[in-house]
């Protein structure tokens, strides 16, 4: 069975903790239409945990005296987030191996399994607010199908952006559209025969690809696949799956597309995260620092060459003032950076970020491709 997501419990969990966490995670993912052990790989105290790199994955480490695990170093190096859990926050040094001690630990006494489950799912990008999909279509050709996809994906707790539903009449349509597209993991394109005659120019489409957006093309039976769509994943509709008079897609096809989208989304999330983290690591190691790993809240702990520690929050999509606010609130006493990949972002948004950065010094923006020199002169 090849999993779409991959989670593990490692360290020294008690039987009760395993049961409680398994129950909490099962409950949470059932809303997505996913099942532990089927679409979501679930490993309890494995001797080795080496998740497939193309799947979004995360682990919980339950601490105890002398608890350890042989995969910790390779997981941290590979960008797999680890949530360390202790019985009490005063016992971190006793219960967690040194390699994990600088990551933010959770106390099981505070919030129990539900809190740990939420942290684990957030690390794997599995909170509903993280499951962002952008539906693109031509209103005169696929309105019915777009509404069907919106309803089906919303029912699986995706945060779906549908241009007719999600933009208020007075908002700047084009800017809002790009902003939301760049913030999505997947562009679900309903490719009807006239799609490219009105939707995108090559340059706009190129910008979406430059942001690393994964495209799932649902091809209408009579639509030709444009040359521009070479990098898209394909979900073709058979004539029997589309009702020509109502424009509705069959339930079977909807289920198939949703599952394919889930797979593409996990892969997209995993690939973008690992490459963003690596760009940070390359920059930090070039100046003699160290990236320790990703932990609770998808937060990366970095040691600068002068031994100062910095918390880095990576943003795969579009960073906003809310990202800054959240990072600052989560880590009020720490030196905090927000790492983002500016390639593909709209120039207007980049200038807004620069402006915001000039006035707020508590947390700093860091461009992934300039991480080395920005951290070489770190003041925060």
């Amino acid at each position, binding site marked *: 069975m090849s999993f779409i997501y991959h989670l593990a419990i490692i360290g020294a969990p008690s039987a009760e903790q395993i049961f409680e966490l398994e129950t909490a995670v099962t409950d949470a993912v059932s809303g997505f239409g996913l099942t532990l052990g089927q679409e979501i790989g679930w490993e309890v105290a494995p001797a080795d945990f080496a998740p497939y790199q193309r799947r979004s994955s995360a682990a919980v480490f339950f601490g105890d005296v002398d608890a350890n695990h042989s995969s910790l170093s390779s997981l941290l190096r590979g960008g797999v987030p680890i949530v360390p859990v202790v019985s009490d926050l005063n016992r971190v040094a006793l219960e967690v191996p040194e390699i994990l001690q600088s990551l933010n630990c959770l106390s099981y006494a505070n919030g129990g399994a539900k809190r740990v489950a939420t942290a684990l799912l957030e690390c794997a990008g599995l909170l509903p607010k993280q499951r962002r999909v952008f539906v693109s279509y031509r209103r005169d050709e696929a309105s019915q199908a777009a509404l069907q996809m919106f309803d089906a994906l919303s029912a699986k707790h995706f945060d779906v952006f549908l241009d007719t539903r999600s933009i208020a009449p007075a908002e700047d349509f084009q800017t809002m559209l790009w902003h939301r597209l760049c913030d999505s993991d997947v562009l679900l394109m309903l490719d009807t025969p006239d799609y490219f005659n009105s939707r995108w120019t090559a340059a706009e489409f190129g910008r979406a*690809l430059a942001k*690393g957006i994964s495209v799932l093309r649902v091809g209408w039976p009579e639509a030709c696949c444009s*040359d521009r769509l070479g990098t898209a994943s394909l979900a073709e509709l058979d004539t029997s799956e589309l009702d020509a008079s109502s424009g509705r897609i069959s339930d079977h096809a909807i289920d198939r597309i949703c599952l394919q989208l889930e797979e593409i989304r996990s892969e997209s999330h995993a690939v973008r995260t690992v490459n963003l983290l690596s760009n940070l690591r390359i920059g930090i190691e070039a100046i003699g620092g160290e990236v320790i790993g990703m932990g609770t809240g998808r937060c990366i702990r970095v040691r600068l060459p002068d031994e100062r520690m910095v918390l880095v929050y990576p943003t795969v999509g579009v960073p906003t003032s809310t990202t800054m606010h959240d990072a600052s609130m989560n880590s009020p006493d720490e030196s905090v950076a927000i790492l983002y990949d500016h390639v593909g972002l709209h120039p207007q948004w980049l200038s807004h970020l620069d402006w915001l950065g000039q006035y707020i010094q508590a947390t700093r923006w860091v461009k992934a491709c300039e991480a080395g020199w920005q951290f070489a002169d770190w003041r925060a």
Partner: protein
Amino acid sequence: MGAIFLSASIPVIGRGQYYETATPFLIQCAVRELAIATVRRHKIVWGGHPAITPMMWNICEDLGANYKESVILYQSRFFEGRYPEENQRFDNVIYTNPVPGDIKGSLQLMREQMLSREDLIGAVFIGGMDGVEVEYDIFRRFNPEAFVLPVAAPGGAALNLARDKGYFNDRELENIDFATIFNRYLPV
């Protein structure tokens, strides 16, 4: 400023088995990371691709690199009248002479000219089909000392190249950490 030859295309059904191992999204990601890692330091020399070229423009723009100076396209005049629209927008295409009535010969001539450039310091292969092996052989003939990097995880002919020529072992063949691969194997 050295130049890196990029052989990148997306396998299609009906041209060998390359399609079966290819993941188009990973081809997109690998080309994206390659462009980000190199475009400010090296020229990229390639044949263009309709699904990838617009992404290249945008990456160059966002990194402050001049597209028409950073990316050099090669096209054979054999295909005159069927050039992609973007050729007209940028003055960065080098046209090579056709061999009349001979598509194979025309492509061979274009590849020989492209791969015998004196500024080439290496070649990167991503995805691709039957042309990859031909390009690899010509590149090696003209540039025996230059680096060659077949990026395996996105599949296609580059995967075969990496496997058959022994570039990477089993686990490395699946590595999707493209940023680290380019940082490790490309010259600074």
